[in-house]
């Protein structure tokens, strides 16, 4: 190949708490002003990507799509040791569903000049869909293996992994360029290094928007999203509810009596 191996790790900034507010006008998440963290699964993706770079050499780039404050997770990734980072941010991207997100991320990876290996976490804890990884691979015209619990071998032409299944796992080999999504089992994330943290402080995160990526408005954001949320509601509470009052010891005894009487518990054991 003409260039060194390039590994891209996709990371996302997600709200820290479950008390997320919705923008009433658009029905999309208001991400500004809410405490944010790196998506926990992406820490594992970072760790996997760092280990691959140790094995193959080359360049490791962290990319994130989000509002301007998402630059923070890029700086965090620099602290962990990635070589470069990229923030992909544009008001036009707001409200993107998973399909529109894959369009933007693929355009960003093309903008970087392509990747030999793309590493993603299994899913983001806010959307919880686990769709972007596999979809991005399809968009880039490369193979993917999802739910990777271990990397056995990797070089610039192939990767051999353990892919978790519902009945165990498979050992799978994929020719590169390719994409993997990883599970916690991939390994314990190393802490950021002092050198990394110092570099992160000084690091100016480059930003690209719709213009630089050449994506059309109808491909991204709400317009580029075939799915839309039409209703939000709190699930109705269930029927008969009874609180058992009093000190814990008596409440504990009482609930057992109620369950025995109602034949929910059998004393036969």
């Amino acid at each position, binding site marked *: 190949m003409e260039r060194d191996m390039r590994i891209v790790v996709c990371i996302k900034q997600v709200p820290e708490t479950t008390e997320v507010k919705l923008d009433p006008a658009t029905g999309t998440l208001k991400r500004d002003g809410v405490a944010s963290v790196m998506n926990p699964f992406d820490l594992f993706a970072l760790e996997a990507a760092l280990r691959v770079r140790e094995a193959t050499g080359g360049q490791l780039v962290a990319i994130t799509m989000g509002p301007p404050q998402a630059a923070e997770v890029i700086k965090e990734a620099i602290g962990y040791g990635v070589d470069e980072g990229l923030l992909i941010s544009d008001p036009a991207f707001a409200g993107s569903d998973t399909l529109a997100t894959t369009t933007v991320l693929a355009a960003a990876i093309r903008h970087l000049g392509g990747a030999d290996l793309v590493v993603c976490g299994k899913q983001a804890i806010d959307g919880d869909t*686990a*769709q972007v990884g596999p979809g991005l691979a399809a968009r880039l015209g490369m193979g993917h293996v999802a739910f990777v619990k271990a990397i056995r071998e990797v070089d610039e032409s192939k990767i051999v992994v353990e892919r978790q299944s519902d009945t165990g*796992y498979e050992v799978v080999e994929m*020719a590169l360029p390719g994409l993997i999504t990883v599970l916690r089992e991939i390994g314990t994330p190393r802490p950021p290094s002092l050198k990394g943290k110092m570099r992160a402080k000084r690091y100016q995160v480059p930003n690209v928007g719709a213009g630089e990526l050449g994506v059309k408005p109808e491909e991204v954001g709400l317009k580029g999203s*075939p799915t839309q949320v039409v209703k939000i509601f*709190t699930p109705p*509470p269930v029927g008969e509810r009874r*609180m*058992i009052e009093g000190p814990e010891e008596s409440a504990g005894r009482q609930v057992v009596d109620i369950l025995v009487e109602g034949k*929910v518990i059998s004393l036969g054991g």
Partner: protein
Amino acid sequence: MDRAIVNERKCTGCGACEEACPFGVITVEDELAVVGEGCTLCGACEDVCPEGAISVPQREQEGAAEQASGVWVFAEQREGVVPGVVFELLGVGRRLAEALGEELGAVLVGHEVGELAGELIAWGADVVYVADDPALKHFREDMYAEVLARAIRAKRPAIVLAGATAIGRSLMPRVQVLVGTGLTADCTGLEIDQERRILLQTRPAFGGNIMATIECPVRRPQMATVRPRVMKRLGRDSARTGRVERLELEELSSVIQVLEVVRALEDDVDLAAADVVVTGGRGLGSAEGFKLVRELAEALGGVVGATRGAVDAGWIGHAHQVGQTGKTVAPKLYIALGVSGAVQHVVGMQAAETIVAVNTDPNARIFEVAHYGIVGDLYKVVPAMLERLKELRGA
């Protein structure tokens, strides 16, 4: 929307697509075709490519929604075994197909799987589309996605459902992009809006205590995944008839090889079959708390469950997780200890016949679903419960 996709492995840089493109948006750089802005998805490049290295996502057509017809279920199989979720999907699929007045199809992909077609028909399919080839023996993400995407382009179903299993969750998002449509994961509810004849997909959302209803009004098919045991199967009827159609399979290739299949369950917990589930959440405070949870579970002849919070904290294995991204259970008795009751957990256990909750927070959402609630310290409540059980049994 978007543009033709180049498979970098297959592209030889021959330039046939560059010549064929009526809009001049394809260039060959470094022996690789690059599709630029202005692609209209006309498909001229796909038609001329000798390597099959360029393809066009299903383009938006006027009236795509009207032209699409039929409900499909991806009938996943692993070594000739179809998991229960497929039959549950045939159950909900049947209901959706009837609401639309359309056919229910199952798509079966593998090698020597033809005999399974009869089962799929017995459980509700009107037609089974079979893709049978030695190359399809093991699940390979790119090849399976290509087979399903081609079938979708050829037959134009309105709805495609799959289990949110290890296979389904890897396959469907890939197909989503190949076909250029919307996908909603982990749906807990599926209904037809009769007036507009579209699918209403409901799932917990936004990391909080909210449910969302999602639509894919224009693009087809509308795709959704559903976790096991969320939907109910209909009855099996061996008298049901249906037809089998073989899918065309030419020129399939893959960059993936399955080298070894290992059967191993890290921690065998049959949550789904248990009559009694005692679940520990973050309120336990530590991994040690699960000792007490286990004690109560054993005293009641049940199994131990866990919330995602407890699993993420590393206190217990994922096999015990109950909830949207864990297992769905419907036991006779569900006891939630130190569980807040976030909607993603509740959707996994709300069908339990009797729900008991113990939590120090009187505003915990779990109390809205529990039949019996105790506000208090579980480390005092549970020992009292165990004592009372002992007393009653000793007597």
